């Protein structure tokens, strides 16, 4: 409201009076004072493991990259057996920057799963799942399974040779569960075999069902992180207080540097190694030699190769599925199985067991990557 005459005076008027009034109006109606108050109090402890706190934020950022690129891909993708491959080909070859969007989505998916696994490993070894954060771990474990579901369902969508057989195997694995297995496999496939009906179903799972479940679980996960704050590892608990970093803006700005690096890595990978499309799926072709799934399924894939047809009268795959299920259950229920950690006691046996499982998974993954492991020729 300052008129021209006011310019002659030495003291300027207080600036931004009107925006403040508008902000005040909004603040009164939306009531975000509680939020800003909470945000101002949010802190991140400083100790020698502080760097691991960045993994969760990185996973969240990569997830949001997947959401954004996924939405963009939806605008051109067509979920049918006769058009899916061609529409992805069109995105890669014709649509301006289509190759970039799809490659970022594919590379981002892999990076995301990798970061989530690192996040989980750090939370495990620093025992951040002990009371009162059990539910944060459990929702996190469920989110990991959903991330794998995203990877598996998204893999089929380009409808190429590799994804076709990967889906045939992947949907035949649950069929090995006694009693309900065949029904489960039918529900997943949308029929008795992998066809266009499976593609429709996986599309729905990938773009609607899993995102809906993720929104709920991720919301709860993040809410719990805010509620309980950052966990301080047992080993640094009794050390003298080294202070804390304010989340806004100190920690967030550091987070953002990491996100910028992640975007750089994604863009570089996508430009230098655009994601391949392969050959269109043909239900009447043999599985190609050297076929293998994405890296995060390689350990399971390799284990399925080693399981003999029958072990003590039980079909090998049934036993395999049972073991995978048991592992998933132990991972999800870990805070309840390790009550010692909640009493602030170290749990070296759990550490040893987890190290053993990780080393075994790594060894199986390396074996699957060896040329002889894939082809057997």
């Amino acid at each position, binding site marked *: 409201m300052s008129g021209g005459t006011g310019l002659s005076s030495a003291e300027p008027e207080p600036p931004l009076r009107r925006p403040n009034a508008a902000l005040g109006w909004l603040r009164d109606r939306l009531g975000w004072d509680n939020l800003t108050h909470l945000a101002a109090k949010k802190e991140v402890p400083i100790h020698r493991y502080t760097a691991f706190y960045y993994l969760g934020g990185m996973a969240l950022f990569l997830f949001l990259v997947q959401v954004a690129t996924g939405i963009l891909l939806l605008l051109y993708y067509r979920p049918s057996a006769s058009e899916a491959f061609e529409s992805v080909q069109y995105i890669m070859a014709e649509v301006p920057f289509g190759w970039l969007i799809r490659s970022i989505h594919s590379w981002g998916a892999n990076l995301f799963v990798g970061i989530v696994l690192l996040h989980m490993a750090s939370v495990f070894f620093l025992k951040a799942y002990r009371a009162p954060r059990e539910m944060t771990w459990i929702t996190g474990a469920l989110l990991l399974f959903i991330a794998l579901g995203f990877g598996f369902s998204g893999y089929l969508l380009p409808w190429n040779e590799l994804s076709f057989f990967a889906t045939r195997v992947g949907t035949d694995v649950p069929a090995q569960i006694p009693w309900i297995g065949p029904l489960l496999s039918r*529900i997943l*496939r949308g029929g*008795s075999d992998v066809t266009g009906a499976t593609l429709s179903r996986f599309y729905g799972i990938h773009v609607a069902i899993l995102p809906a479940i993720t929104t709920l679980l991720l919301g709860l996960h993040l809410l719990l992180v805010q509620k309980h704050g950052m966990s301080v590892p047992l080993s640094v608990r009794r050390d003298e207080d080294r202070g804390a970093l304010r989340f806004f803006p100190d920690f967030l700005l550091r987070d953002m540097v990491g996100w910028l690096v992640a975007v750089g890595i994604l863009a570089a990978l996508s430009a230098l190694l655009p994601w391949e499309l392969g050959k269109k799926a043909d239900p009447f072709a043999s*599985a190609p*030699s050297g076929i293998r799934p994405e890296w995060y399924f390689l350990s399971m894939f390799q284990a399925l190769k080693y399981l003999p*047809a029958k072990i003590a009268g039980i079909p090998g795959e049934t036993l395999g599925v049972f073991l995978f299920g048991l592992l998933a259950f132990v991972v999800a229920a870990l805070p309840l199985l390790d009550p010692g950690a909640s009493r602030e006691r170290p749990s070296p046996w759990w550490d040893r067991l987890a190290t053993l499982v990780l080393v075994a998974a790594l060894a199986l993954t390396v074996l699957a990557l060896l040329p002889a492991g894939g082809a057997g020729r």
Partner: protein
Amino acid sequence: MPILSAMKASEVAAPDDTSRRRWIRGLLGTSLGATIVSFLYPVLRYLVPPITSEPSQSEVELDVKASQIPPNTARIVPFAGKAVLLLRTASGELRALTATCTHLACTVQYRLERSDIWCACHNGTYDLNGTNVSGPPPRPLTKLDVNVRGDRIVIRRA
């Protein structure tokens, strides 16, 4: 607020009327449960795909001529919606086997250099009779009848 205080007032008015209250609660709970079940049932049924009548042909005459398959080669042919491995042994005999691996449903292939049947997915092998020889496959491949009428190949369920 007025509604809340009215409810509180009614609670105060009948503090010992618990059996009626329990009955009403049970009734509400049961009908709520029944409503949820009646919503869920069609959804769950919807998720299970209907069993489509699979092509019930028991006999298919292929587009492939018998002379197009030289000894020690094979190809995948469709039979009643499924993949079938049609092969000619080195001695010249035509054989047909279901091509779906009995392990985890990949499609097998004929290995020329070893004259065996191999699944690329988990390294399972079968001999030319379809018997599972090594690797994880639990059962043999199913054999089908092959006949040659003129130069036409006819596959039939055994």
